[in-house]
């Protein structure tokens, strides 16, 4: 928890009252406490105001009003990635994009157009109706825009690359309140920044991106008791390095709490799980998965299913929850790295982390994307993500648990960081290749010369 003192409105925030058709909440207003809560309840901030604009024009009004009274603006979608902002909002307007729910799927052109408030679950469902799939992240409740701007690792990532590379147009309001539609033809710098550049260059109000002709997949999970972690993860590492690009998988150590959103057969158990999606028919997929099935899992749920249904594959909580997350990118996963992982997160490690997952990278993710963008590939072959809940010992203990894991994996780590899954203290510069970083700073400076927007990683901003 990042505590913040006295939730008193700076009087200047009053200029926002009544904007957005009344959808502005100031401290003391009846709905303020509800409106300021992000999905990730770990962040408990008391912004100077919370605004829910529904149109670009309303965004523009909010930005101008905030600037007029020297308040910063922090755009936020669902607030899954809220923690890095916590503690920095007292003099800022939290601009939540949830009211911009526009969602259109063009079956002919295989594209989607979404407002900044659209959720992946809705996009997946709508695209699925016309046998198309989006490069969506694992949870249906995650906002499209936030996760797309920072990269976006999907179940099809190894075949089609990062979601940010699929973006074809972005509409945004710059710090001075001007509205811009950036495409490859016009304002292409901003489109370039939107492809993985995170934020800080404007309030994105809508995105357009490609969809892919995937209608059925072979997907499911394999699970073992976590006593088999060493054996399974080592074998997974070998398999993952050489698997075809049609498969994208995640292996993880899962200490399932006894919570109602989990299925009964998982609840309260400690497991090692491999989730995967194979874009192939049953026979081909069976051949791909054979090495893992040879490890004789206790659970095997793989089956042919609609692409839309994989949105729910991973067991993520949908209701707002307080979680801590941090990650590290690895060049490879040799047996010794698995040892280090199991020693710090597995049986007997004393770790209370909810899960530690290894995301299989490589394939299209390791090649430069055809469309230029701030982030056009992933540096590394595995992303290790630690996620913890505060189960009574405090957030410091959770953080420490995660640090144990990431520290132990340092020998295999790359220089880069995946900021969408990184905690607050990560140096922002590590999020991009050096060549991208300077260009990104230039674009931000041009779009926001007076520093109106709070960057998701303000700690690194001074650097």
């Amino acid at each position, binding site marked *: 928890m990042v505590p913040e003192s006295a939730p008193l409105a700076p009087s200047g925030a009053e200029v926002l009252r009544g904007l*957005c*058709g*009344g*959808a*502005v*909440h100031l401290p003391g207003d009846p*709905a303020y406490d*509800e*409106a300021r809560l992000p*999905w990730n309840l770990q962040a408990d901030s008391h912004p100077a105001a919370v605004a*829910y604009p*529904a*149109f670009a024009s309303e965004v523009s009004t909010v930005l101008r009003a905030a600037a007029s009274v020297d308040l910063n603006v922090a755009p936020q979608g*669902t*607030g899954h990635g809220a923690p890095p902002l916590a503690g920095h909002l007292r003099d800022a307007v939290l601009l*939540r994009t*949830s*009211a911009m*729910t*526009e*969602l*259109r*799927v*063009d*079956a*002919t052109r295989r594209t989607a157009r979404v407002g900044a*408030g659209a*959720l992946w*679950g*809705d996009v997946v469902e*709508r*695209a699925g*109706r*016309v046998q*198309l799939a989006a490069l969506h992240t694992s949870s*249906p*409740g995650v906002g499209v825009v936030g996760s797309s701007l920072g990269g976006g690792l999907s179940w099809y990532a190894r075949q089609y690359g990062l979601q940010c590379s699929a973006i074809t147009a972005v509409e945004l309001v710059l710090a001075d309140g001007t509205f811009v539609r950036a495409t490859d033809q016009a304002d292409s710098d901003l489109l370039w920044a939107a492809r993985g550049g995170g934020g800080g260059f404007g309030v994105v109000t809508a995105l357009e991106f490609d969809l892919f002709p995937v209608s059925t997949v072979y997907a499911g999970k394999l699970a073992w008791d976590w006593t088999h972690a060493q054996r399974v993860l080592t074998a997974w590492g070998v398999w993952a390095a050489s698997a075809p690009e049609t498969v994208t998988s995640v292996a993880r150590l899962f200490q399932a709490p006894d919570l109602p959103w989990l299925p009964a057969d998982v609840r309260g158990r400690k497991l090692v799980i491999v989730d995967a999606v194979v874009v192939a028919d049953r026979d081909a997929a069976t051949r791909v998965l054979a090495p893992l099935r040879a490890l004789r899992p206790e659970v095997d749920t793989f089956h042919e299913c609609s692409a839309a249904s994989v949105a729910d594959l991973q067991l993520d909580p*949908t*209701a*707002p929850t307080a979680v801590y997350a941090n990650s590290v990118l690895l060049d490879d996963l040799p047996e010794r790295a698995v040892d280090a992982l199991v020693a710090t997160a597995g049986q007997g490690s004393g770790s209370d982390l909810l899960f530690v997952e290894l995301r299989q990278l490589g394939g299209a993710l390791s090649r430069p994307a055809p469309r230029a963008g701030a982030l056009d590939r992933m540096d590394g072959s595995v992303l290790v993500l630690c996620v913890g809940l505060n189960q009574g010992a405090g957030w410091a203990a959770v953080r420490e648990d995660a640090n144990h894991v990431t520290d132990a994996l340092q020998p295999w780590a790359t220089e880069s960081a995946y900021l969408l899954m990184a905690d607050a203290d990560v140096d922002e510069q590590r999020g991009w290749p050096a060549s991208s970083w300077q260009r990104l700073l230039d674009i931000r400076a041009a779009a926001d010369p007076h520093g109106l927007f709070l960057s998701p990683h303000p700690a690194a901003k001074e650097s």
Partner: protein
Amino acid sequence: MDHEPTVRLRVLGELAATFGGAVLDLGGRRQRAVLAALVIMRDQVVSAERLAGCVWGDRPPANPAGALQAYVSHLRRRLQPEAVARQRDGVIASEATGYVLRLAPDSVDAWCFERAVDSAAGLAPADALRTLDDALRLWRGPPYAEYVGEPWVEAEALRLTELHAVARERRLETRLELGDAGVVIGELEALVAEDPLREERWRLLTLALYRAQRQAGALAALRRARETLAEELGVDPGPALRALEAEILAQSPSLDAPAPRVSMDLPAREVSQAPVPPTDLVDRAREITELRRMVGELANGRTGFVFVEGPAGIGKSRLLVEAMRLATAGEVRVLSARGSQLERSFGFGAVRQLFEAAVSDPAARDTLLAGAASVAKPVFEEMAGDDAVSNGSFAVLHGLYWLTVNLANQRPVVICVDDIQWCDSASLRYLAYLVKRLEGLQVLVVLAMRTGEQHPDDALLADLALDPSVTVLQPAPLSPDAAATLVRERLGEGADPFVAACHRMTSGNPLLLRQLLRALADEGVRPDVSHVDTVRAVGSRAVSALVTLRLRRMPPTVTAAARAVAVLGEAADLPTVAALAQQPEEEVAAALDVLSRSEILTVERHLTFVHPLVRDAIYNDLPAGERALHHDRAAQVLSRQGATAEQVAVHLLRAPRRGSAATVELLRAAADTAISRGASDAAVGLLRRALEEPVSGPDRARVLVELGRVETQVDGPSGVAHLRDAYDALDEPHERALLAMDIARTQVFVSPPGVATSFARAAATDLPDRLDDDRQGLIALQRITGYMHGLPADSYRTGPAPEVSGEGDGARMLAATLSYELLREGQDRAGAVRLARFALEGDRLLAVDTGLLWIVAANVLLLADDELGDFWDRALARAHATGGLFAALSVNLWRGFAQWRRGRLEDALQSLTDAAEQQRVWGISGVTSTYAAAFTLGVLTDLGDLEAAASSLDSARGLPWVGEGGRLLREAAARLLLEQGRASDALDELTTPVDYPQVANPAWSPWRGLMARALAALGRTDEAVALAREEVALLRRWGAPTALGPSLRSLGQLRGSEGSADLREALEILSGTCAALEEARAQLALGRSAHLPHGEAVPLLRATLATARACGALQVIRDAVSALGQRGESTAEVDDVPARITSRQRRVTDLTATGMDVNEVAQRLFLTPGTVRAVLESAQGAAP
């Protein structure tokens, strides 16, 4: 939007082409076939050979290539009328091997159709439905209709027909997805009947039936499908139908609708005939039970009045709809109306909404508007003709009341008026008048009012809301459970946090909640945990912002249509909306359909918004300048359509000012209509706007006069100001003199003391010599106003003593004034009577004076004991006929005074109560209210109801005790205090220094007698007797018996044993006069004398008893009974004597005896049927 005119081709139906909207002539059948063949091949090159095959089949002409070339060249010329010859290969291009069509994808209806159907597949249901509807609207018949059956067309026609069938199925499927299962069943049945071999149609039908809770019907449909397929094709149903059957049998949850909702798009007629039960009426069990009870009791002849109040959106209108539904189900006639801000300027607008349907049938109209109701006719006339006799309110209200009675006599009636806070004042007066007279009518009145806002008619609204008979309903915010129900109905089963957020963000306000859920449904939001934040985001907005949010996400045509409807208000119908939105009617019809499906509009009698807040939101979203221009355009459009001046004026009131003479004329005409309906306030608004247009020259003076005259009825000070402006602008002296009289008459009541007097004097001085009669009129006003305002006599009795000369109206006015002066001096009764009779001769003053001078003259005759005959009846009849409000009020007031003086206490009380109601309903206060209070106080005191009198005095203390009315109040108060035994207070009351006008004649100001009684009670007998003697002496000079008698009696009583001579004289003087109560008092006073012989006293006391009983004077009865008791006489008969009969009772029984029925009697006597029935029942009960 294209700005360049382009070619558009239609092939869905007959082949046709337009250019920039104009239809093109495409030539003969063969030439058209060339174009059709090119369209079929779209952007592919069509060989000349193939084209020839299309045009001539297997019988080509000798030179097909040449003929083709000619056709193509003609077509090019026709399709590109604006291009020069060389450029004409644009649309039909020549290629080496043939020809190819070069048209944009949106130029051909079939191409648009195909693309729309394709794109709908990826859209959210609401968008998809719009897209499919748009696509289907392009379909005008079989494709390439004139070439049906030709081989070259067949394949393409089949393809398009199939696509059409699919689009229709998808459309219904989408509506199913939107939760419209119940509504689409009919359409699906029709689709199935059209092509029973399409399994998809059977599937949708089955699904719809299942979702509409008709599981048996669903299975039956499957059976029919199976039979049909077996019979026609000999096959079994396919996998889709078989799976569906299995799922239905298993009641699989996957069959449930994703988001059912209430459908609002039923055809208009059905709605108005039988309002559908609003299924989302939740949490209203208590209110509905109450309404059901009252509607039920209506059938048993029980009347009722319900007042529904609460904040905007809480569900008042819903309850009204429910009341109407219950009524319709119970064979009760429903009359409904709704106030609206736009129509506030329509005089009797709400009343016309109520009755327009009932009186629209000419035959019914004649019956309903017969008899007493006939004066209400102008209310329902489009244009006020010259023969519109009525210019006022009172008679019209009475007529409308009788219209209501006539309707209720046919069958029970429920009157529902929504948003009464926005009703025009005239309609509110009707409602106030009606609810006071509901007794005995089969009428239930249900009114709804929005609370928490300021309204111009607060007093009238409060009068309604506080009526003793009212049942008040205050719908409460919805409970969380109810919110869950609504979420389930609109979006499906909601997750708890989702439902909680919906409830919290809307505070349980049903309108806000419904609009929020609609907005969420539009966006296809699922009610799960991950969308809680969407609820917060959208639900944070005010209703207005929610509506504009939804509207902005709709196509521009839809927005334009919504705005047009918002501007037009009641006048909104399809052609007008289309004209105002400047869009083709077809597109506007589609837009209105979208709006009604989206729960923004509802189609009742006309197009209205689902809630006034929704209308406000859309209206206020228009920038102010644009709004004014819209109104300007609306006025033009309505004018062109032949709308009435009133309808056009509603918009002119809000349009920019342009100084247009035509606008001024229209506004004046509308004001004229309003005046003829008795809607003065509406007329004032219209004429004020006309003045601002601006208007100049002689027209300006005319507008000022019209405005000022009508304003004097509702806003005296402004009326005076405008009439003064007009007075300054006019030249013609006689016209000016008449205007000056109007001004002075109004100034009496609204201007500071002295203003009227000096204005009248100045106006009189200005007159040329020849206008002597006008001068007399003005001098009359100068003098009477000076007196009424208590000015020093030398300030209004200026110049030489005026002489009445001639027989003009002015002479009669002067005579009235002078007669009143003589009355006050109290010395020349004969002279006063002569002048007053001259003043009233021929009822001339009744016609020219509002009720100032003829009242004065009548009062002189009354106080001089002269015979008035049926003057008051004539005056009242005239007031009813001309609608003179002030006149009617004056008649009731002064007739009450006359009745009181004659000892007809009940009649007097009734007249005064009528006057009080008129004051309240029209908001008249000031000078008449002190007179009314003083007279009422006196009557109650005489009735012996000291408690009522005391409370009446308490409320009279709130009035300004000034002028003559103040003096009368003071004397009435002193009399009450004396009766209460508070002599000292009475003396204080009479001796407190005030500057009421001094009146020498005790007949009109009997303060000496009152003070004498007080002094006597305080033991100061000598002073008392001296005062009483002085009064008697003064009254002997005046000589009116009914004034002298009581004064003598009073003196006799003060003198005790020495006073019997006075008492005997008093009795002698009074016997045979009409002052029955005073006669009884004289009898009592004498009969109580201790020294009077038993044989003389007892008959006197018995006579006292009889007279007092006839008057209803309780105190006198009590005193007589006790005096008789003291003499040992029995008074047992007191209990047996029939209750007194008022003149009202007598007139009712008399008329009934002539064979009239209750309604006829009531109409004749200006009573309600309920009163007549009550009178007859009490008369029967009293009969032996």
